């Protein structure tokens, strides 16, 4: 059976393993809750990670382009960008997919099978991680813009009445399109 076919067949175990590794980047006290995978509104981090890992896995299998990868990574990276993670920690969970796949193919790897297929797949994972980093940077830039827009939005009306204006600040809700992974991350 081909490597691709086996990836599809072993999807459930691989995605679950990957999702658990992603969940374990949070404090251990939260693991049970995150892994419970209940209602995404009662368990928003767990729900987001579960959806992201599942959708990303499928996207990588069908060779999705960078735009689609960016879209699928968006919410989880947007979240991790404001969760006190170091930049490397924020995107590291993407690489964990490599380990999950290797664990699922332990027997075949021991026999020396699929080495070039595995290298190809891991290359795709690396690409997704780079997209994740673009998205992360976009989110951090956006965070700074949101901070300055908030300060300006509060006083905009008063300043305009004084006959002054902020030439470069759109009012809240009319902000320029986000310069981040949502629209740009995948297109350097």
């Amino acid at each position, binding site marked *: 059976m081909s490597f691709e076919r086996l990836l599809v067949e072993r999807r459930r175990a691989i995605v679950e393993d990957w999702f658990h590794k992603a969940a374990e980047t*949070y*404090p*251990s*006290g*939260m*693991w*049970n*809750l*995150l892994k*419970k995978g209940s*209602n*995404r*509104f*009662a*368990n*928003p*981090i767990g*729900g*987001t990670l579960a959806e992201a890992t599942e959708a990303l896995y499928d996207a990588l299998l069908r060779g999705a382009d960078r735009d689609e990868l960016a879209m699928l990574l968006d*919410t989880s990276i*947007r*979240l991790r960008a*404001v*969760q*006190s993670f170091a930049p490397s920690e924020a995107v590291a969970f993407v690489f964990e997919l490599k380990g999950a796949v290797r664990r699922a193919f332990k027997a075949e790897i021991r026999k020396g099978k699929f080495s070039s297929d595995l290298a190809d797949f891991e290359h795709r994972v690396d690409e997704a991680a780079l997209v994740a980093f673009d998205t992360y940077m976009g*989110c951090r830039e*956006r*965070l700074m813009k*949101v*901070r300055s*827009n*908030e*300060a300006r*939005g*509060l006083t*905009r*009306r*008063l300043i305009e*009445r004084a006959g002054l204006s902020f030439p470069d600040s759109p*009012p*809240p*809700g009319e*902000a320029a*399109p*986000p310069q981040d992974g*949502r629209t740009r991350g995948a297109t350097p």
Partner: protein
Amino acid sequence: MAKYTLPKPEDMSAVRYEYDGKDWMDVPVDMRPGNWCYAAPLKHQELLKLPHPHKWHPDDEDWGLPENWKEIILAGMKDRLERFRSFGLFMDICVRCGACADKCHFYLGSGDPKNMPVLRAELIRSVYRRYFTKAGRLGRLAGARDLTVDVLKEWFYYFYQCTECRRCSVFCPYGIDTAEITMMGRELLNLVGINIGWIVEPVSNCYMTGNHLGVRPNTFKDNIEFAVDDLAEITGIKVEAPIDKRGAEVMIVVPSADYFAEPHYFTFLGYLALFHEIGLDYTFSPFATEGGNFGLFFEHDEMKRLNAKLYQDAKRLKVKWILGAECGHMWRVLHQYMDTMNGPADFLEVPKSPVTGTVFDNARSTKTVHICEFTADLIRHGALNLDVSRNDDFRVTFHDSCNPARAMGLFDEPRYVMQNVLNHFHEMPENTIREQTFCCAGGSGIGSDENMEARLRGGFPRANAVKSVHDEFDVNTLACICAIDKAVLTVLMEYWIPEVRVAGIHEFVGNALVMKGEKKRTLNLRAEPLPGFAEEGEEAADV
């Protein structure tokens, strides 16, 4: 007989009170920037005569505490345990079942165990056990620990990462109001001069001039006149907006953001249009220019003082009752604390709508009616002529603001109003609305910009629910009835779902309201073209 083992309390919840295998008591607080707010400016501490006024910074090693800080805190704790029975009960009765643990938006957005309401309360409960219970002598075995500077810093870090929204209390089988534990924690910190600028400065401004920003009566008057002019440009009607009118029937109290910030201002225009249309005999007060009461967030005497101010001016103006606007915490103070602080307001009359004759018995003690109750009653009696289609560009969902929702049970009136002024309304998932609403993560005085990261992750559960209706129903507007929400959710949406903007309910009312003698309406209260008038709107703008 089958062997049956009772589950241990810690097995009853999906969460554990630990950090990577370490007990929470062994994990010192890490004061990361982005998670705390700046200290209060000295001049405002002094103006309010707060205890131990001093300059300090959360990033400093030395917080400049008084030498006898420990005695002060323990004496303050003893005093409060004796005066507030609820505080003593909340310290004793928690069994750490964990029902509250995964209900806090800060925990759900951060994963930090000390953001769990149960563990946040343990930060102070452990000190209570050590110094106020016999078992406390056993130390850690009894869940007790010494009060140290690091513990104090931990209190500051986590009690200012709680918005006192009370979602956790909804799920507590014992009815522990964890928000009140946070309030006590902040009061104790204040005793040694530890408080934050975003709370103390507004309280000080409010005390001196009547509102958070320190807007003086003449500027307040200017702002109202600007609003009257803006409304006239849109509707062709120059409304009266009386200030300091003695003997008016009703005094209006609005949050100060309504008359200077966006999107609050559009709601304010809606109030002005509504009051004109129904011919309400009302007045603004030049001194009670703030509904919000930030005293609630750190010191109950300050809360009492600011609440009293509103009623003092209602007395001076000889009004019959008060109409309160789309404000959040104002309503918690009124409904839960006012009666034992300054109430009942016997010198006012039980509110009665001059239009419909409805008597608001629910406001018999405070004599203050929520504007959503008032407007819902007007609509129920067919007192308003409404053109709902004017709001067709708004595809709306509703965020139940924590305090009107959980502190006064105002669930149906805002929805009733919206259902009568909007064609496109979609509820968010059941476990994120009404009494289970998720907080905006900037309430209780922590809507500052230096802690933006904490706000954005704490607001994720709310944003996540908004995103679901945005994706499913193309919702583009998040409605709410709290001034802090309007500011904080605007930022939250800008980060999480930039396609969604924030609005107040009376903005929709003002849009839909067909006013007698109005000019042909082509613009909404944001001065944007109404549906079907895009070209005319553009032409109007060109002229």
